């Protein structure tokens, strides 16, 4: 099976004094569903940030979607990010844009035609049960609704890899279930690789998944 992520002796740090991830080795198969767990401050979010190039490895090799992220140039990083769908714990929606425009963002960046963009956004709004709210701005929505918008944005351009950082962290049951269903659907139907950083793996998971755990700066698979 193809590997979408290959990490060899990867070390991650915000400063020279403190290494968060120390010479970790792991690989993730294309089309798999992966949970990454760990205690608070163990480096889960740091690892996720490194997967979309916001934090570059200080040593080792980290290849995501065929792109080596250590010392990656901006142009190449932008190319990779165009094929990623990212869901953040704090949603990261553009406040001055309507939710419709927020969902359109990756489609605009990828240069999709207007008609395709509109159809895709309409379909996603239906999936996240927010069709009736399309003209609203993020701050007019609840946290759960905002995360559903962020989820729709991450799925809009059919990415090869979805990275989700605590996607259901502070959400109500309805929104949480909707988000898990969407992530499972993307993985099952579109064969999109999904990596979720979380404290708890939901009990309701219907599909097969892999589980990695971060402890003391190391990543290991939980079997």
């Amino acid at each position, binding site marked *: 099976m193809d590997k979408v992520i290959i990490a060899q002796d990867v070390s991650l740090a*915000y400063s020279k004094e403190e290494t968060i991830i120390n010479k970790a080795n792991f690989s993730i198969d294309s089309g798999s569903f992966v949970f990454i767990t760990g205690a608070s401050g163990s480096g889960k979010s740091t690892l996720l*940030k490194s997967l*979309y190039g*916001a*934090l570059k490895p200080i040593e080792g090799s980290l290849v995501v979607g065929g792109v080596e992220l250590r010392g990656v140039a*901006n*142009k190449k*990083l*932008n*190319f*990779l*990010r*165009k*094929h*990623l769908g*990212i869901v953040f714990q704090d949603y*990261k*929606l*553009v*406040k*001055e*844009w309507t939710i419709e425009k927020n969902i359109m*963002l*990756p489609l*605009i*960046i*990828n240069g999709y035609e207007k008609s395709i963009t509109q159809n895709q956004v309409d379909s996603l709004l239906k999936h996240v049960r927010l069709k009736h709210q399309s003209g609203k701005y993020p701050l007019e929505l609840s946290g759960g609704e905002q995360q559903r918008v962020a989820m729709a*944005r991450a799925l809009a351009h059919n990415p090869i890899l979805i990275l989700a950082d605590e996607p259901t962290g502070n959400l109500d049951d309805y929104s949480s279930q909707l988000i898990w269903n969407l992530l499972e659907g993307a993985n099952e139907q579109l064969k999109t690789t999904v990596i979720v950083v979380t404290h708890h793996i939901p009990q309701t998971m219907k599909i097969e998944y892999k589980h990695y755990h971060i402890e003391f700066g190391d990543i290991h698979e939980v079997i």
Partner: protein
Amino acid sequence: MKSFKNHISLVVALVSILFSMQIFMIVDRSISAYKDNLAMNYSLVVVSQKKINTKDLLNKLTSLATIEQLSADKVIKKLNTGISQKNLELLKITLPKFYKFKLKTYPTPSQLKKIKKQLLRYPYITKVETFSNTHDTTYKLLLLFKKVIMVLAITILLVTILLIFKELRIWQFKHNERMNIMGLFGAPTWLRSAVLFRLSIVDALISFAISFVIFSYLAANEWVLNQFANIGISVVVFDKIYDSLIMLSVAILVSILLASFIVLGHKEEV
């Protein structure tokens, strides 16, 4: 209302830059016009023992505009009583010649000294009256006025620059989040900053339009024109082509610089 708020702060800063720039241009033009006016009304009186070859002198001294011989009749008329016609004729021949020299531009005190020195080199020129006291006072007043206006313009410019820098920080804060999010989805720099550049160009156009309306009104305002007429000068308050082009260029340049600073100073959050 939200959109209005987005624009108002930069528009105010840009309008004040354009306003101070145009005011300075008007003052500069007024001073030039006033200087021309002074040059027109200012003349030297030269006393010569013989008739001056005006053509020759005008060729040699390029700062001279015209040379006009003053009639001695007025002086002779005063002496008319008690002097015979024959003596009067004799007096007419022996009296020195008086000339009024006009200059091309209103000279500085040092230029005036130089002209006087050049004229006195001619042996037949015995006296040059420059009315230097009056001249110096007027010239110094003119310089003082120009300096005061320049200080005022620089002060306005400094205040405006501070205003723009404050605006820069607000914009940085406001646009960084959007640019950051767009960057996380792979948007190239031009796409991330497109909104910013569009907004700054719109603000530049709004500021230009406001300034254009204000100065077009002032240029046609009777009270303003009367003020210039009262000091005997005619000044172009607002040239709709030349001044507009300068205003538009400055407004666009400043706002694009502002946007560029934000784009260059943008760093992705980690």
